[in-house]
């Protein structure tokens, strides 16, 4: 095995990097891959909570870098899905506790044992971003359909390109199909037009995101919800499968249940 290393970035904060990392990691593991999600947001760790593994964290990746523990001691194994691991961040340290060379070395050490290494990046374009991105080959850029988020995504895409990351692909998160239909929200194609970048998926606004955070269980582990399906599709596309985009428009304006009914009767290609 030689893992693909993928960083989840955004520029603007709070657009769904951690939610995306957790759900894609769980989905890839469900598809039989061996996955480690690294929380690269040192000092503001969240991935452990979103994955519901906070009570099992003993060491963090700074401990590994500083050789306080072995990497196997810091990895938290998710007992719900085989092949899913978390490498937590330190909560009481700052981003200066680590440098890009150390991140690269950490990823290299993990590569032989995994299929995927997903790095959950902090917001911004400063040290924390540069550390997380250093170890990665590929990038996912998360944006919401709003001007500030798209603008910052453009900035990050430019930086990732100059760092030589490839492919760099876009996740549009929190899209509200009914607002798009009413002409009050940037549509997928508007955003792709201005950013000129490949799309890997569109995730609708979905209250189940909050529910799953409350429960500490990524949606892709069990929930049948629009966002869960969107993330499962993204994971499949990462695996190189050609999965058509969800028909979010037909879900707009109707109730969630009629949409779900349509989804399951309408020949979805879930395996």
């Amino acid at each position: 095995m030689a893992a693909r290393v993928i960083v989840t970035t955004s520029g603007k904060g709070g657009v769904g990097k951690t939610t995306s990392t957790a759900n894609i990691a769980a989905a890839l593991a469900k598809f039989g891959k061996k996955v480690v999600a690294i929380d690269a947001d040192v000092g503001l760790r969240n991935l452990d909570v979103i994955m519901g593994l906070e009570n099992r964290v003993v060491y963090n990746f700074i401990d590994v870098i500083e050789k306080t523990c072995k990497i196997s001691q810091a990895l938290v194994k998710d007992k719900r899905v085989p092949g899913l691991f978390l490498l937590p961040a330190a909560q009481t340290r700052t981003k200066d506790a680590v440098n890009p060379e150390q991140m690269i070395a950490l990823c290299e050490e993990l590569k032989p044992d995994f299929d995927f290494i997903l790095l959950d990046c902090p917001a911004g374009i400063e040290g924390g971003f540069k550390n997380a991105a250093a170890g990665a080959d590929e990038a996912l850029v998360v944006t919401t359909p709003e001007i500030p988020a798209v603008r910052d995504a453009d900035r990050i895409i430019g930086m990732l390109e100059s760092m030589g990351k490839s492919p760099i692909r876009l996740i549009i998160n929190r899209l509200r199909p009914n607002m798009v239909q009413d002409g009050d929200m940037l549509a997928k194609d508007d955003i792709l037009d201005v950013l000129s970048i490949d799309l890997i998926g569109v995730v609708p606004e979905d209250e189940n995101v909050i529910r799953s955070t409350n429960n500490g269980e990524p949606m892709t582990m069990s929930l049948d919800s629009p966002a869960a399906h969107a993330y499962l599709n993204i994971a499949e596309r990462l695996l190189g499968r050609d999965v058509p985009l969800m028909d979010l428009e037909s879900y707009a304006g109707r109730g969630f249940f009629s949409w779900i009914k349509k989804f399951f009767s309408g020949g979805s290609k879930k395996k």
Partner: protein
Amino acid sequence: MGFLSRLFGSDNGKDSAQRAKNRLQIILINDRTDITPELLENLREEILNVIIKYVDIERSKIAIDFEKEQGATALVANIPILRIKRGGSIAMN
């Protein structure tokens, strides 16, 4: 933005998503070229000062701006000319 807003040609008739897209396009052109409105204004003044040495131009109808097409950015100037000055060495249209 349906046919009504096109008919009346007002920005107010446009839906907010279309306005957002237009604003974004302008913001990103400036971000990507690192060119601020002030810098563009200075650039415009200097270009015009060179051009008026050779030709008479109609100042009110000048348009100089950045345009983006397929990932490339171009500086596009449209400068209507009234008259070529005697002794001016370049011809423009």
